[in-house]
């Protein structure tokens, strides 16, 4: 996993909330790499900064009050943080596309699926309307929509949740990006539809050699689609590595706790071990390790010194006293 092969490399990224009287970072020193033809899952609970990390790659965070306060985001060798607005606009779509959580509210209700798709094409390519419509129909088919011609003329409110998420995927595919960022793409969907959408993402990786950055809070989703994973807690990456390695031998007490809290088929309710305590607010984080108050393995150093992300075995972990 050397730097030269990574398609997207986030280094030491911090994103902060800055308004008149407040200012603190929500994403703190995050480093991630998405390799070509790979699915990286970023997992963590609500508010851990995973969505904000994803949004800031394309600078889609609500700014103000959210600003990138440090670090770099290298895509294909270019630092996205330094791009001008018009350069960034050219990246959105043909280079990096994004799929959002709630497809029902993420599609403009006043336009047909076809219009939304063709205007996305025309925003980047100087082709005729017919050519754009042809690309749009292809994208709908590629997204796994059964009757593209019919859906083309339908409005978002006429689509079911699953079909509108496919329409979102089509919108992401229509400009043939190299990287797709999928922010909780299945959270709003039924379980059966979830599985279909995840299969579709896996096929896109396999057939088109795409890279996918998948944001999720669902460890089951991670296990079924991702190659590598990064676990986030309070805006930091606390553990990252191949999915099999992390699942088999979690080293950060938080990862360990998360996996211990997943119910297993045939298991007893008493097998579940919840993580005690609650997540500290981003403006009142402990000085040392942010997990210290909830950690059973905390040592003296944990309250005073912030651990750094370091290689340990086959994974990287941010902990003074890792498991195992």
């Amino acid at each position: 996993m050397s730097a030269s092969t990574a398609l997207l490399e986030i280094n030491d990224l911090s994103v902060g909330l800055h308004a008149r009287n407040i200012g603190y970072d929500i994403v703190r020193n995050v480093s991630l790499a998405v390799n070509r033809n790979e699915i990286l899952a970023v997992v963590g609970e609500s508010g851990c900064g995973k969505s904000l990390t994803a949004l800031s790659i394309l600078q889609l965070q609500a700014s103000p009050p959210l600003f990138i306060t440090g670090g770099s985001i290298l895509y294909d060798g270019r630092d996205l943080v330094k791009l001008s607005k018009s350069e960034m606009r050219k990246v959105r779509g043909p280079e990096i596309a994004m799929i959002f959580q709630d497809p029902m509210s993420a599609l403009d209700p006043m336009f047909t699926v076809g219009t939304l798709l063709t205007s996305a094409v025309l925003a980047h390519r100087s082709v005729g309307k017919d050519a754009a419509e042809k690309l749009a129909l292809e994208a709908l088919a590629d997204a796994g929509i059964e009757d593209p011609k019919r859906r083309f003329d339908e409005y978002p409110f006429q689509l079911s949740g699953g079909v509108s998420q496919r329409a979102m995927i089509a919108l992401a595919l229509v400009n043939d990006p190299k990287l797709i960022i999928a922010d909780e793409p299945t959270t709003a969907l039924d379980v059966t539809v979830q599985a279909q959408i995840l299969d579709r993402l896996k096929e896109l990786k396999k057939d088109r050699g795409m890279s996918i950055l998948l944001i999720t809070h669902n460890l089951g989703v991670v296990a079924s689609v991702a190659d590598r994973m990064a676990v986030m807690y309070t805006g930091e990456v606390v553990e990252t590595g191949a999915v099999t390695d992390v699942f088999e031998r979690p080293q950060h007490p938080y990862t360990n706790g998360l996996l211990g809290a997943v119910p297993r088929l045939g298991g007893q309710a008493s097998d579940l071990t919840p993580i005690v305590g609650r997540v500290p607010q981003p403006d009142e984080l402990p000085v040392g390790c942010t997990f210290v108050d909830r950690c059973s393995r905390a040592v003296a150093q944990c309250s005073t010194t912030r651990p750094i992300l370091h290689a340990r075995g086959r994974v990287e972990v941010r902990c003074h006293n890792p498991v195992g």
Partner: protein
Amino acid sequence: MSAILRRVLLTILLLLLSSLAVFAAIRLSGGDVTAARLPASATAEDRELFREQIGLNKPILTQYVDYLGKVTRGDLGNSLTNNAKISTLAVEKIRNSLILGGVAIVLVFGIGIPLGMMAAFRRNSWLDTSISSASVAGMAIPNFWLALLVVWLFSSTLGWFPSAGQGGLRYLVLPSIVLAAEGIALTVRMTRSAMLENLGQDFVRTLRASGLSESRIYFKHVLRNSLLPIISLAGLRVGQIVGYALVVETIFGWPGVGQILVNGVLRRDYPIVQFFSLLLVVVVTLGNLAASVGYTLANPRLRK
């Protein structure tokens, strides 16, 4: 189909009820046309004789039935003060009022929407602050006072525009601005808040993520979404302009429906009041109908 039929029947019922209300109200408001029609020296007997000639001494209900009968035969009656045929008067008055009201409606949306968009696009800037403050003023200032103000400034002091009467375009400027002022102010505020609300919607982020330009997102997508509430309240704007026309036409001596109606009321010219106030009811009803048809056409959820 049944929805349309129901709407038509309701409109007819509304017209009947309001005709009755107007008919009764103007007769119960005291005084009658003899004060305006007969010389001050006329005796009580003269006045009574005149009332008898034009049928004012019959019971109100009988008068109303007679009136309805005439109207259904297409006879709108004559003015009691100068005997002019109302059907002839109406053509000219309606034409004049349509010109003034039409220009005012165009101003309400043609100025209100772009200003509201500018305020939203440059929110919290000095431009937004000025537009928003001006729109608060526009809502707060009563139109009769605004009329006096613009006449004093642009007519008496600067001499740019005539203060009253009818002629070329120059005569239209002051009355149409005064007539439209409050509507413009309300449309600015509504456009601004609708634009800002829609700018915060998830779909805007999706459009940005597809690489659409900000101006395309703003002028095509956010605007189209924001037009819905504006269209849905367009009926109210029409009603407002119709109501304000009474004041504005009178102040600016604009020979339209509003002016003849005000004069008719002052002189107790019953047929004039009855016809022209019903006309206003019709216009307001049609305005609301047009707004709801427009809303249906503009909203894909209702169109499909």
